[in-house]
Each structure stands twice: as structure tokens, then as C-alpha cells.
């Protein structure tokens, strides 16, 4: 591609990313009409509870874990490693914070304890990913299945921990002790947005830089594009699989611990926000670029923050949010398909129709064929 097409390419990327979102919103509106709810009320509600007043601050707080999960997914997906064990990885990170927090904050200064929790969370996530990673690297086992299985196991382990050694003896429901407000992540001055948001944005920028500008990023891209080429240029693919999986899983676990220390302060058994399910389509929309993921995650954070109340008001189930995400995925696939056809020079219109339509505008010489 030459310089003239840079702007064109940007426009194309924009169209391919934003059009599916718009279409999904329109169609979900139609569905709401069909099931007798008011889409206007719903979207007005999303706006009201997601943005107006100080609600935008709640949305940004939600962005912190979502964005970190997104970066974690991007790191793996760039290398064509499909880490779908995100729910388990997230919960492991969360339980590290909710379980170790009450213990550590008693014995260490808050700052130090927070750092220790983050580091341990990342390590736990990374170690948990070793099994799918090693199986993939050594035996070519499909990582989608192994990471999902490991995720199920993780969910179970986390519940056992919360019902067992991390349980708060003072209450009857299985949950961890609530961490005191003084120990939670501080707010950005003047707001009620915890600094996890700043951490997430910083991570996105760093990840963007590393992936697009450094030798490591290029290696990841080569590995993702063709394992054969990776071997040819001397990359150690075993190491690459393990490293990418560890980074991805470690980041997602970090998101869990940030969420506990920034937002929830304790963890209940059987709690699973399943952020990854919603974030996954968004990272595809962002074409695996961390910075490009920021607006999409912001969009979803508003939708989720406002949508919870709005859907109740509009008489919808909260799960309707996932319907919207599903529709985004669907329209993304369609736009992608049409985009590819266009790139191949194929028309949106069937060629016969196109020729008939264009016929009157053609020069005489072109019209006759034989």
C-alpha cells in the first residue's frame, strides 16, 4: 500500500469497526420493539445511568478491569493463541486480592501490600496458564479446549477457597472479609474513579507501543502470521507460546485483583462477572490494537453500567446486554465478509445486475463484447 491509501485505510478501519456497533444497536432496538419494550426508554436509560451526573465515573471505574482483560486477550490473540480461559484467570486474580488482602493489610503498609497482591495475582495467572501453554507447545494440543477446561477448574478452586480458608467467619454467607476503605486503591483526586483506571490506560499505551514498535512485538506478529516463518527466522516457538500465554493470563488475573481492590472490596462464592465474554468481540473490533480497544471498552462500560438499571426499567432482563454484544459479533462478521469481497474487487451487487445498471453510462465500444 502506498501513502495515498493510508487515509483510505483508516477510513476503512473506522467503517469496519463502527458500522457493526451501529447496526447491532439498531437491530437490538427492533428486537426490543418486538418483545414489547421501548428501545427509546432503554437507550435513554443507558445514557442517564451510564453517563449523566456522576454516573460516568462509575462507567470509567468499570473500564479498568475490562480494559486490562482486553489487553490480556490481545497479547495472546496477536500470536494466534486463543486463550479462552479468561473467566477462571480473572477469578484467580480476584481471589488473590480478596483472600490475601485482609491478611496482608494487617501486617504490611497498604502500598506495599497492594504491590505484593498485584505481583502474586499476575504470577498465579501465569502459572495457571502453564498447562495449556506447555500442552500446546509440546504436543500441539488445541489451547481453546485446554484453557477452557483450566478455567472451569479455576472457578471451582476459587469457590473452594472462598468457602474454605478465605471465608469470613463473622458472616454466614460464604464470602471473604471486607477490606477496609483505607486499604482500597485511592481515587483520582476530585473523582470517585479509582486509579486502576489510570493503570489500565497506561497498560494499553505500553502494550500498544511494545506490540507495534519493538522487536518483541514483531516477533509476536511473525509467530502469529506463520509458525513456519517463525521457525525460519529462529524464534523459539515453545518459549513464545509459554510467554504469551503467561502474559495474557497474568494480565487478566491482574484485572481481577484491580477490580477487588478498586471496586468490590470482598468476594462472594459463585460470583463471576464474565467480563471476558463481553470484551472478546471488542478486541476483534479493535483489530487486536490495545489503544484502539479503549473507545470500544468505554462504549461497553457505559452500556453495562447504564444498561443494568435501564434494562430493569424497560422491563428487560440484564442478559439483554449480552444479546447486544452477540449482535455486534454477528454484524462484525458480515461487514468483514463484505469488506473482503470488496478488497477482492468483488461488488456488493451481483455482477449481472451491476452491468445492466451501468450499461447506459458505458462507452459504445465497451458495450459490445464480441
Amino acid at each position: 500500500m502506498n501513502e495515498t491509501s493510508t487515509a483510505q485505510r483508516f477510513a476503512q478501519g473506522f467503517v469496519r469497526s463502527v458500522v457493526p456497533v451501529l447496526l447491532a444497536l439498531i437491530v437490538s432496538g427492533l428486537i426490543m420493539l418486538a418483545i414489547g419494550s421501548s428501545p427509546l426508554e432503554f437507550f435513554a436509560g443507558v445514557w442517564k445511568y451510564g453517563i449523566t451526573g456522576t454516573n460516568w465515573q462509575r462507567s470509567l471505574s468499570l473500564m479498568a478491569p475490562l480494559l486490562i482483560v482486553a489487553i490480556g486477550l490481545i497479547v495472546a490473540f496477536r500470536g494466534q493463541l486463543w486463550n479462552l480461559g479468561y473467566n477462571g484467570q480473572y477469578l484467580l486474580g480476584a481471589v488473590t486480592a480478596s483472600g490475601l488482602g485482609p491478611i496482608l493489610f494487617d501486617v504490611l503498609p497498604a502500598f506495599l501490600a497492594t504491590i505484593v497482591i498485584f505481583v502474586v495475582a499476575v504470577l498465579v495467572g501465569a502459572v495457571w496458564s502453564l498447562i495449556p501453554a506447555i500442552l500446546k507447545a509440546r504436543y500441539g494440543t488445541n489451547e481453546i479446549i485446554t484453557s477452557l477446561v483450566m478455567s472451569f477448574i479455576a472457578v471451582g478452586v476459587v469457590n473452594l477457597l472462598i468457602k474454605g480458608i478465605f471465608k469470613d467467619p463473622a458472616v454466614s454467607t460464604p464470602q471473604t472479609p471486607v477490606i477496609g476503605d483505607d486499604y482500597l486503591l485511592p481515587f483520582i483526586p476530585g473523582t470517585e474513579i479509582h486509579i486502576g483506571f489510570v493503570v489500565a490506560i497506561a497498560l494499553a499505551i505500553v502494550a500498544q507501543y511494545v506490540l507495534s514498535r519493538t522487536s518483541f512485538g514483531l516477533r509476536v506478529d511473525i509467530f502469529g502470521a506463520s509458525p513456519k516463518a517463525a521457525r525460519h527466522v529462529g524464534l523459539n516457538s515453545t518459549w513464545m507460546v509459554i510467554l504469551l500465554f503467561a502474559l495474557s493470563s497474568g494480565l487478566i488475573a491482574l484485572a481481577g485483583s484491580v477490580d477487588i481492590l478498586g471496586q468490590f472490596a470482598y468476594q462472594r462464592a459463585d460470583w463471576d462477572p464474565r467480563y471476558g465474554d463481553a470484551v472478546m468481540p471488542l478486541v476483534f473490533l479493535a483489530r487486536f490494537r490495545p489503544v484502539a480497544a479503549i473507545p470500544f471498552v468505554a462504549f461497553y462500560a457505559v452500556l453495562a453500567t447504564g444498561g443494568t438499571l435501564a434494562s430493569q426499567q424497560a422491563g428487560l432482563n440484564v442478559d439483554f446486554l449480552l444479546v447486544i454484544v452477540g449482535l455486534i459479533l454477528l454484524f462484525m462478521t458480515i461487514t468483514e465478509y463484505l469488506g473482503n469481497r470488496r478488497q477482492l474487487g468483488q461488488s456488493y451487487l451481483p455482477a449481472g445486475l451491476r452491468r445492466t445498471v451501468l450499461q447506459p453510462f458505458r462507452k459504445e465500444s465497451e458495450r459490445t463484447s464480441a
Partner: protein
Amino acid sequence: MTTTATSEVISLRDITKAFPGVIANDHVSLDIVSGQVHCLLGENGAGKSTLISILAGMQQPDSGTVAFDGKVVDITSPKVAVDYGIGVVHQHSTLVPAFTVLENLMLGESSMLQNTKRAEQRLGELADLLGVEIDPHALASDLGLGQQQQVEIAKAMWKGSRLLVLDEPTSMLTPQAIEHLGESIARVKAQGLAVVLITHKLREAYAMGDCVTILRGGRNVGHIGVEQLAAYSEAEAQDAILAAMFGDDLAAVGDEASDLAGAAEATREVRAIDFDDRPVRLELRDVSSRGLGRDIEADGVTLTVHEGEILGIAGIDGHGQGALSEVVAGQRPVASGTVFFDGEDITKSGVRSRQQLGVRYVTDDRLHEGTVGSMSVALNLVIKRIGQRPFWKSGRIQPKAVDTEADRLIQEYGIRTPSPETRAGTLSGGNIQKILLARELTNGAKLVVVNKPTYGLDLKTVHLVREILIDFAARGGSVLLLSTDLDELIELSHRIEVISRGSLVGGVVNDGVGTAEKVGHYMTGAIEGTD
């Protein structure tokens, strides 16, 4: 054009197709007549594959029409092409290796209920028509290249009754397989199908073709009709084709043109060297390899390559050439034996440290291994030096340095690309090969392993690649040349070893007449001995 009442004409009119930076087809018009073999010739990047991908419904022309007997048709998708009876055997294999022959053939079947019995019957018919035997239940990956191609042809003709297109079908085949292919094509033609044959070998065009069209820079620059071609002697036909193909550039190719066209007998073209004066650069002592795949491993290989020497490795494709190259390049682990480079034991060192010592490898899989098609030409040119100065400083890419190096190599090796930022995968085969050579031979190369360096390349590029290798050796570089093209080995090598089932079965010093016979003797000996 001879058109009898019964024969149908497929006419392409003013087909134009542009890609960013290139016009791949520029108002191309030609007629394809049933019952004839229409040869399409032209340099790498002339637009041959683009033209047939339009016929196959894989690309849509920007303008222009395709008509059957004057009736304009729109080939909007590959499926439509199949429905019109157009079958295409593409330049690169499209079979699914893990599927059986029959499963591969039935992939395109649209009905839910796949009728295996009818499919087997159809395969039987096609096998008869082509004059070949195909085992319907063999795995595609277990077939030799020649057989794979027969399956591809059967697949193309599965529903086909109008046109069979073969895109460079002979570039990877052994002489025997090429002969078989010729017979099959003659039978298809006798059935009244039109055949389009793309090739870089003038000899084949003359032997198999009824008429010839030559593309250059996306334009139709010459056509030799049926009567004319029949009237020409082989030499006359060659002259006419070469003149059209290269135009004014012909002088640059010079006497070598006819040589490259395969008219003259091959002779050695490198200067003789005295092995005793030359230090040994590469030595393999009883080396066996161990890979993960199913391909044949190197088995107890012992060889030496001196400074300034080109050592040829002859053999039928798939006899361990890949494993041997990878063992030298450091891509495949050594199971037993030792590898020495400049007297140093490098058995245990990996690709990157060998690369820095000056060991380079031009792989035969240009598209998927040698380059990353989705990345720019510039990046592909420095991809083996990731993290090294001056292209990376403390891990950060230096776009200026990369561009400077890319511009230099593009200039020096005459890589034809719209810009250094163009994605490498969109270049033509010859230009991708130039990227590989440029990258591997630069910056302190001492030994280069080249595996089938000229398959699929046009005459001029073949010539250029061979010149580059001869030049490299003349400047003291060592070359380990693995090739299935005996003429190429004889032209370039000082010595030739013969590989069979992963082992070296005999060596010949290439110092005069009779090399071909001696090598041939080892090859047949090896085949009879083991089969």
C-alpha cells in the same frame, strides 16, 4: 482464429484489473478455442495468474467481459465458474493433506447427501480419461507431487466440461511426471475441452501448445496462431516468443536466452576451483536429523563444502532435501553426528547464532516460510535481523534504518515492488525469491543453502538467480545447492552428490562430459535398489 461449427470460443475482451500500484491486466483480449491447448507465457508478474483467477471467479475485473460464443457471462464467484464448466489447477496446491483423495474431490459437492459411489465412479471415468491410476482412498499427503497434481486435475474437471486451466503445472514435477501430464492434456483436448496452460518453459509450450499468447506488464504483447505455430520450427517459435516476452530487454539476456529456454545442452558455467587450496567451510559428519513431521529425515549424511565451492545435491523431490537444508540452517535438531562450520562445532547452535556466523538458508517454501506475506517488503528484508543494530536500538525499531536498507536491497537485486511498504505476499513469485536472496546473501554471508532456487521463476529471473549464486561463489562464498533440476545442477555445481531417502548415495565431480549420465546412474541405482 480457426473456428469450426462445433468448437466453442471463450473470448476475453479488454480485461483490466488493477491492484494498488500495479495494473495486473491491461485491456487483455484473447480467444480460447475448445479442442485446443492455449499456452499463456510471460515473465513473473506479467499477470497470468490474475487473468485466470478472473476466469475462475476469484477476482472480478475492473472492466472487460468474458463471453462464451459471443454470449457475455458474469463469473461472479468460484462456484459460478464451476457451474460454467471452468476448472482451474492453481499454482499452489489446494488439496487438504489430511483428507483422502475422494474426500478432497467431494469437497465441492453441494448436495447434503454425498454420494460416495457416484464419486468413485466419476473418479474412475476421469482417471480413464487422463490415463492415470488414482487410489481414491489414499491420503492426499501420502501422494507424490505428480499424483497430487493428477488429483488436482481430476478435481478441476470434476464437473468441468468446458475449460481446464493449468497454472504452472510442471514447475515441481520430475521429467517423467511432465511426460505423463502431457499425455493427460492431449487426452483432455481430444475430449473437446479447451485447455489453458501457463508455463515458463518454452520447450513445453512448443511441445504441448496449439497456440501461444504472451503477456508482458499486464498486456497481451504477442500471439502465435495455430497455423503459424505449426509452421514454425522449435527454434523459430522460441525466437518469436522470446522477442515478444522480453521486447527490448532481450539483448540483456543475450545468448543465454536460448540456453535458458532449454534448447542447448547444459554445461558447467562456474569457474573450476582447486579443492586442495580451499579451506573446508562446512562439514557434516554422519549427521542424522530428527523432526516432528512426517517428511524424510537426513540419515547419516557426510559431506564437505569448501570456500568458493558450489556443491550440488541431486535427487527426486521429497527425498530428504528439506531435512538436510534445515539441519544445516539450524532449524531442525541433529539426532546424531556433528556439524562443523569453519572448523567450529555448531551442532548445538540455533538459527540465529548460525545466521550471525554467516550460515544462510533460502527455503523452497517462499510463500509461507521464507516470507510473511502480510508484512511489508521492507520488514521481510530485515526479518532475520530482528533486534539487531542498526534496525533496532534497545528493542525499538528504527524505521529510517530499515527503509534505507530496504531501498538498497530493492535497488541492488532489482526487486519489482510498488513500494517498500507493499505487502510481500502480493508480489509475483520471482520477486519474492529476490527478497529471499537479497536478505540471505547480504551482511556477511559465508555459506548459503538454497533449496530449489528457481522453480516457478521466469527465464530472466532464473538467469539472474543463477548469476547471483555463481557470483557469490566467485567471491569466496560457499553454496549448498539442492535442486531437482539436473541441468541447473550441472550448470552451477563443482561437485554433485545424489540424495535418496535421506542418504547420500554417490558423488560426481562435475568436470566435463558425462556428468548427467553419472548422476542419472546413481539416481536410478538408488531407486531400483530401494524400491
